């Protein structure tokens, strides 16, 4: 047998005991930090979002979820108008048709456009036939906020946990965790305010788009961005350190 030369296909990361302890500690810290942030920072953030969107006229609803008490702004939604719903559905159908026949469109953009148009059109049709669609304003905002809490509770520790697979430094781990949490909070404030404004102007037929597409996309895109930037930075450092590589 020949001894194989070192090659990228035959290398793995060398994870020592200390690294593993650090990684585990970071994952536990991630979980603890996520709950601490939700417990102590969530309510003031939501309060701020409410005031940003509606000022002092905001109708505030309080809720308790996962043991966390918070308040959320509730917009006054316009009632479903049957004619407007029908026109919206027709408009969405036109968008889907146009995107199918017009040449030269970038496919991912086209597919996101189509998916949103289909959901919006579907909501409008449902509203046309049933007179209502989705939720009243207060239950929707509560559902949205509860989903946000769960997102942080699940996604941030998961992000920290999968980073355990790689020999990141403790600083990189903590920086990634801090960025993820900070972004979650900052963007959630903007998001809740923006969603409330959209609901106040366009009513319940936009709820499904906000909840099914916009919300998850905002969460996941930036969590992945935090993850990818951290790994990209760490990767450059690791490439220069032979000690982290194991060879077959």
């Amino acid at each position, binding site marked *: 047998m020949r001894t194989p030369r070192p090659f*990228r296909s035959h*290398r793995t990361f060398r994870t020592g005991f200390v690294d593993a302890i650090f990684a585990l500690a970071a994952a536990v810290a991630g979980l603890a930090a996520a709950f601490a942030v939700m417990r102590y920072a969530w309510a003031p953030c939501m309060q701020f979002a409410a005031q940003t969107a509606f000022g002092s006229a905001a109708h505030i609803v309080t809720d308790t979820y996962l043991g966390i008490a918070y308040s959320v702004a509730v917009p006054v939604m316009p009632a479903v108008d049957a004619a407007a719903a029908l026109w919206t559905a027709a408009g969405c159908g036109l968008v889907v048709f146009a995107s199918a026949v017009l040449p030269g469109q970038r496919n991912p953009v086209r597919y996101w456009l189509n998916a949103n148009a289909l959901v919006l059109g579907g909501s409008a049709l449902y509203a046309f036939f049933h007179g209502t669609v989705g939720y009243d304003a207060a239950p929707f905002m509560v559902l949205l906020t509860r*989903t946000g809490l769960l997102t942080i509770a699940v996604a941030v520790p998961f992000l920290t946990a999968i980073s355990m697979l790689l020999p990141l430094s403790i600083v990189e781990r903590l920086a990634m965790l801090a960025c993820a949490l900070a972004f979650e909070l900052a963007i959630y404030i903007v998001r809740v305010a923006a969603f409330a404004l959209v609901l106040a102007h366009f009513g319940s037929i936009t709820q*499904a788009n906000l909840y*099914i597409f916009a919300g*998850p*996309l905002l969460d996941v895109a930036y969590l992945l961005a935090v993850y990818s930037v951290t790994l*990209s930075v760490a990767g450059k450092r690791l*490439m220069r350190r032979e000690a982290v590589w194991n060879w077959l």
Partner: protein
Amino acid sequence: MELVVAVLTAWLVFVIAAMCLCTLRHLTFTCSRLLRRQRPSLGDAYDEELPSVTVLMPMHNEAKVAAYALEAVLANDYPAQRLEIIPIDDHSDDATPEILASYAARDARVRPIAVLNGGRRGKANALNAALPHATSDIVLVFDADYTPGKGLIRRLAMAFADPEVGAVMGRVVPRNTNRSLVTRLLSMERAGGYQVDQQARYNMNLMPQYGGTVGGFRRRVLAEIGGFDPQGLAEDTELTVNLYERGWKIAYDNRAECYEEVPETWPARFKQLRRWSRGHNRVLFGHLLRVLFAGKLTVWQRADAAFLLFSYLIPPLIVSGWIAEFLLFAMGRMPAAGGLAIAVSVVLYNAFGNFAPAYEVAVAEMLDGHSARLRLLPLLLFAFPFNAWTITTGFIDTIGDSVKSRATEWEKTARTGAGVR
């Protein structure tokens, strides 16, 4: 109404559970690739007694790339007297036949054949037609847009030193990575799929897959199976499950790199992915029960086989989950965490690509030393609706094929010849 809500909720829970299982599977693979000792391939062994090998190269209108592919195969270091190259002209109406003829005149190892199967074309047909012309038991297959490295044939052929190995697969590496966003994203998917997924399945003695190109098989095994399904669009998956059902092994050699041209535009990718989905799901319908009850497989191999066969069913499942989610939402009956659960589960499984989740791609790129490319990782998410819908259309095609008993037609992936000039 309550019954509808109950059914939709149950379906949503099922979709979420399926996604989580897939996530767990890929996470296990990633851990195996990173933390376990890697299983070596026989390509690392040195042996003077190399077997005779026939290389098949199916080509349909490949004038842009045929010469480069042939040059690369001819430049390999395999002993000339043990190598036979059969380029297959599959109903070409461009300059491909002339190119093949010129190489045949130049080098005795090149013995092109032309396939005229009454107008029916496609890779499975071309390979079936070429196999009787092969003189070696070991047959390697390269697509026309693939350029193998110098030592590749030796590495792949060495895998057959193990008499239990029925097929071998090498690693596919895109060579036109920097041409467009599509090629960059596909390069990341390929890295995750081969560097982590295939190697881990080989490490864990599960079911590494024969991928149709950059690989090979024993000719007598194919004769035993009865050749490739002439209607098949995924002859690689078909051969994979046929081999495992009969107790053969498939070896994977991560160092056997071959360089390919990935689609550079979204429409070209759409055609390719839809064809894969259509062909793969056809194999699913035909083989699922046989694989699940194959006595020669271990429980874990059967589970891996099921996941492999279901891999092109996952996107339609996700689309159905979205529909269920939308209906529950419209009715105002969304379970408290339903939306989150499907979003997270989809995301855990995805940022999607060729069935390599974000963390798997990240690990692969880190191992490959391409950490700068990791900044594109979030963009995989934006390609997700494209992939989901494309694969779903392929799935619908498969159902149409089954219901109407209609003939399938091979749609060739467009080539540009990029990266080889």
